[in-house]
């Protein structure tokens, strides 16, 4: 009966109840977005890093993956050593560079040299994968995979033959080395910004194009621990650090921590805005319930007079606040998901951000967390006016009502 009465009380003033629910919904939406923002970046980055299962990144000593143009010499030996470790399931070496594209709308493109069978940098979306460079003259042309941005901006299509070169002499306008290749497929490059045109080709071919000094170099290697749990990953990382002094190995967790540090501004913003939205929701519920109680002093006094205990009145009023909050939460959930999409779209425009990276990530945990915070806030907001309602002096309230 109390629930019914609480609901009926809220329906008594539809305009004010609607406005209050709307206000709580907006506050709830903002809170949900901030919770998603606070946890989303690390979740997104984690899933990004673990897309293909590689938990470790091996980069030149003292650098983060692709944070500089530094490369690792003696790549072959390092990769062999890693692959010989029984705790390591797979190793994917990568070499990054920029190659020029002959007779193209774009003069150059970021290029990744990879081993097709173990690569973890892209997924094929159309066409076929890269092929090895064959030395025979009668062998078909090597195939490359490019990003959608490359195809759009360079004005090419799958199946086109292009010439890629390196060692451009700016004075003579000639290249030291070039190769004709066929665009075999289009891929989604996980770690490369969406606006960057990318080429993926066979690692050996890229080394060949870059010249003798790159014969045994790589920019980065990704390694996958066989067992996969964090202790094993850490053990492998430690082994690499001990046995390979010229490289730095970082685990997914370390990489996430470093990215979070760079993006800490957004976490702090999320915390501040989340707190503000909780405060707004709290004030709205507390104000509305308090005013509602003040309006119904006589009614509440009569309830007490006819035998309703203090706790009963407290429950009654408390339920009103809780119902308001709950209605606001439902609206806020839907609104929050919509605004999260909008805000995520704005932040995804950050230059240099991997295309698969999101700032606002929905997860049931984020939803539950926001719900718990809001319900707690709504509960506390309704408590004080509920207690005041339960403490109304009956005789005085009835006297005042008689006079009024």
């Amino acid at each position, binding site marked *: 009966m109390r629930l019914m009465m609480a609901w009926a009380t809220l329906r008594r003033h539809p305009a004010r109840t609607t406005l*209050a629910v709307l206000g709580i919904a907006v506050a709830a939406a903002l809170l949900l977005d901030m919770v998603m923002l606070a946890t989303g970046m690390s979740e997104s980055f984690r899933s990004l890093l673990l897309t293909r299962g590689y938990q470790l990144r091996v980069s030149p000593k003292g650098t983060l993956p692709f944070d500089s143009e530094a490369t690792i010499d003696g790549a072959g030996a390092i990769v062999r050593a890693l692959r010989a470790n029984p705790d390591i399931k797979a190793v994917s070496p990568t070499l990054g560079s920029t190659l020029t594209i002959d007779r193209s709308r774009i003069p150059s493109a970021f290029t990744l040299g990879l081993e097709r069978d173990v690569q973890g940098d892209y997924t094929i979306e159309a066409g076929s994968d890269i092929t090895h460079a064959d030395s025979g003259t009668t062998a078909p042309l090597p195939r490359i995979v490019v990003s959608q941005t490359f195809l759009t901006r360079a004005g090419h299509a799958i199946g086109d033959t292009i010439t890629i070169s390196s060692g451009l*002499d*700016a004075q003579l306008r000639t290249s030291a080395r070039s190769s004709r290749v066929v665009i075999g497929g289009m891929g989604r490059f996980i770690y490369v910004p969406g606006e960057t045109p990318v080429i993926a080709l066979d690692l050996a071919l890229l080394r060949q194009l870059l010249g003798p000094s790159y014969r045994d170099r790589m920019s980065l290697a990704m390694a996958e621990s066989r067992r996969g749990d964090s202790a094993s990953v850490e053990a492998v990382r430690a082994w690499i650090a001990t046995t390979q002094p010229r490289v730095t190995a970082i685990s997914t967790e370390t990489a996430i921590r470093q990215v979070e540090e760079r993006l800490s501004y957004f976490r702090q913003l999320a915390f501040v805005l989340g707190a503000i939205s909780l405060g707004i929701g709290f004030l709205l519920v507390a104000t509305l319930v308090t005013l509602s109680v003040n309006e119904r002093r006589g009614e509440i006094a009569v309830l007490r007079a006819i035998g309703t205990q203090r706790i009963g009145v407290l429950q009654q009023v408390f339920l009103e606040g809780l119902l308001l909050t709950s209605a606001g939460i439902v609206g806020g959930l839907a609104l929050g998901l919509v605004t999260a999409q909008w805000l995520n779209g704005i932040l995804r*425009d950050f230059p240099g951000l991997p295309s698969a990276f999101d700032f606002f990530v929905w997860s049931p945990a984020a939803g539950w967390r926001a719900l718990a915070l809001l319900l707690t806030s709504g509960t506390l907001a309704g408590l004080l006016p509920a207690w005041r309602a339960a403490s109304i002096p009956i005789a005085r309230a009835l006297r005042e009502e008689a006079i009024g």
Partner: protein
Amino acid sequence: MAEDLGLAVGARVRISSKPGEPGDSAFIAAIYERKADPAEVARREYRVRLHLDQLQQLMELDDRVDRFAVGTRDGQSIDSALARINHVAFGFRAHKSRDVAVQSSRTFRVVERFHFAIGIITVVASAVFLLCLLLLSVEERKRDIAALRLMGISRATVVRAIVIEAAIVSLIGSVIGAGIGWIASLIVNAHFQELYRTPLVFALLTPQIFAFATGLSLVLGIGSGAAAGWRLVKSSPLALMGR
């Protein structure tokens, strides 16, 4: 870098292009403060400046540079200089600094748009909150309004009084809110300048922002006061009294 590594002017350091190499010895001649560039915020890399030829020697780069910065003489057209350079140079292009700045400030512009979006959301939330509160405060006094009407005070006068009151409340609220916002901006700036070690100003309360906030608050206050007032005066005074 000086703080983290405990370096001071006159300190002797060794710099090399690869880890483990002997490199060159150098003295620290000066310590400089990073400029307030939004694109630089959150980048914690250390920066060193040295003479070009020394760096080229260290990196074994011979006669190589990343770029030239070109200044034109007073009165010389930038466009014509740009055209001449691009005409005669092989393999590289000249760009106006302004165009480069536009590109490199993209990070800042994304953050700006994000803040703007958040601003819209908080303005909407505040507007709804303000509307709700003003509606409640007017409805709370319906008996007073009924008494005025019974005395013969016209609807228009009653609504006018409510609107003026709502406007005053909104104005006072905005001023107090601006004060709180100003204090908050001091705290925000102090915190992030310390955190990111930058002189960049993160939050700024300008006269325009104050005018906008106050204006919006006034409009909402007057609008909601008028709406709530008219809703009440439409009912008969006896109904408002609860009879």
